[in-house]
């Protein structure tokens, strides 16, 4: 097959970013007339296989190997490398998840072929392929081309393609076998856990007031809470606020926190690092207040204010309360 999409298990269902990569594969396939396939593995292989076979792909490959039941960088990198050796695809696509960041660089090293990671779009024609990637904390974009022999490994940033655009269909299934030995897996993983209990579920919130490092200090957080309360909004934050201990981790939005899509996301003093933006760019209305007119968050804002938070927030709260 020409395009292989490696799908990730998210507790028995396909990771959302995997479906987005299926949409990416279908896009490339439509442009170049290439065949497409997907790969599933791990302890939930059966449920992933039936979910994946309902997409418009030529084939879904599956591996039944108990050494892959739990994720390990050693095992997954070797398994994907062997499948690539057997199937000889031109493009191998992934969602740019934390798991993919953990093991796909090793696949790249095993094959000595490039991994074009965290791409936001792809341009292909008969002659060449190029990927667009954000660099310098999203201040600059680059167009990157791979050289030399295929395969090329490519991962897409969250929401670069939409899972809704993945076309449904009926894919054949085929088992592939690989040779793994328990001595190859040199790590042991414990159960995943959450640091703090009783977190807030921001994914269903209608209105979110989110605060970043620009608020300056912990003493200014109550001012933001007052505004959130006046609006009837949930409060969230970017990572630096959580790292500083100003709000608990359960309030964090972004790649290491929650993904949200409220009717309004009011971003206060948030610069707009990629890691934050991937968690909130699906919001219907993004309103930004920031004192730095160059902050990347303005790129995705529907409404923007360049100004001093400490002056604006209390007056805004007052104006909403008196309405």
């Amino acid at each position, binding site marked *: 097959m020409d395009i292989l999409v490696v799908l990730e298990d998210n507790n028995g269902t396909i990771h959302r970013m995997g479906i987005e990569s299926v949409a990416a594969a279908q896009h490339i396939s439509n442009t170049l007339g290439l065949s497409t396939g997907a790969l599933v593995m791990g302890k939930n292989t059966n449920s992933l296989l039936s979910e994946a076979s309902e997409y418009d792909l030529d084939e879904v490959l599956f591996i039944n190997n108990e050494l892959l039941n739990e994720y390990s960088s*050693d095992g997954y*990198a070797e398994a994907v490398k062997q499948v690539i050796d057997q199937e000889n695809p031109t493009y191998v696509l992934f969602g740019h*998840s*934390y798991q993919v960041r953990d093991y796909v*660089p*090793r696949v*790249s*090293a095993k094959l*000595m*072929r*490039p*991994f*074009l*990671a*965290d791409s936001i779009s792809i341009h292909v024609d008969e002659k060449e392929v190029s990927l667009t*990637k*954000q660099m*310098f*904390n*999203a*201040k*600059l*974009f*680059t*167009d*990157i*081309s*791979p*050289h030399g022999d295929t395969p090329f490994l490519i991962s897409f940033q969250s929401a670069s393609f939409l899972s809704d655009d993945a076309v449904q269909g009926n894919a054949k299934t085929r088992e592939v076998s690989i040779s793994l030995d328990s001595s190859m897996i*040199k*790590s042991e*993983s414990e*159960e*995943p856990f*959450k640091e703090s209990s009783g977190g807030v579920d921001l994914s269903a919130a209608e*209105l979110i007031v989110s605060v970043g490092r620009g608020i300056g200090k912990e003493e200014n957080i109550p001012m933001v809470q007052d505004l959130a309360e006046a*609006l009837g909004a949930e409060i969230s934050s970017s*990572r630096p606020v959580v790292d500083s201990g100003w709000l608990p*981790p*359960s309030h964090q939005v972004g790649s290491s926190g929650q993904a949200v899509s409220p*009717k*309004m996301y009011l971003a206060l003093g948030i610069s707009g690092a990629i890691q934050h933006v991937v968690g909130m760019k699906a919001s219907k209305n993004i309103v*930004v207040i920031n004192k730095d007119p160059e902050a990347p968050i*303005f*790129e995705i*804002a*529907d*409404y*923007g*204010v*360049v*100004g*001093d938070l400490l*002056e*604006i927030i209390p*007056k*805004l709260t007052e*104006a*909403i309360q008196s*309405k």
Partner: protein
Amino acid sequence: MKIAVLVKQVPSPESPLPLVSNEDWLDESQVAYIMNESDNYALEEALQIREKNNDGEVVVVSLGPDRTQKVIREALSKGADRGIHIQSKDKYPTDPLLAGSLFAETLKEENFDIIFSGLQSDDLGYGQTGIILGELLGMSTATLAMSTEIINNKIKVKRELEAGYFQWVTMSLPASISVQSGCNTPRYPSLKGIMGAKKKEIHVVTPSVKDQNQSIKKIYAPSSAKETVMIEGSVDQVVEKLVTVFRNEIKIA
């Protein structure tokens, strides 16, 4: 315990990023450089392990043009024992597989027990070099480490997962581990450290010439995908306009 720390010199967050005229790279003469943020945490993690065991060596390794010796010196002043500078001809390779291969070629005889790197660089942001290096040297690997602990010739790593989850992973040494910013409190160099660093060795290595497997064709400022309505005026005017937008445009009840 013999520990390598990979550090990279990158543009500071405040630095201008002017492009050269053919738009394939920055005009580096106008860029202000610092040590990559997460590399500070990687260095601190290594220094703490050496101090806890009261034994071992911390070697700081950097790939780049001559200017990169500044961050090697900075790491030496914070307490690293010696430095290795892998000289790249003009600029840093923009292919992580090439960068990882150059590190592997230079470090394979050193037999490090642990290699620490920052999660990703704040310039290219691939997040691959330390992991590729680990694979090429036959080491265990882990990314997104929030804390580490050495137990019986193994390393136990608290890894960050998605959606607020964490996981402990124990792996055999040698291991190459990339650390997340915020996992410890990086130290500042002492005056004694700064003076002492001048006497420490930086070994300069000229690596073999290899081709890139991927390269940047064009670098450019992003065009805003959205049309942003900017709200301007005095604080009172801004507040009044915001309330109007909330009510009439976004239709917040």
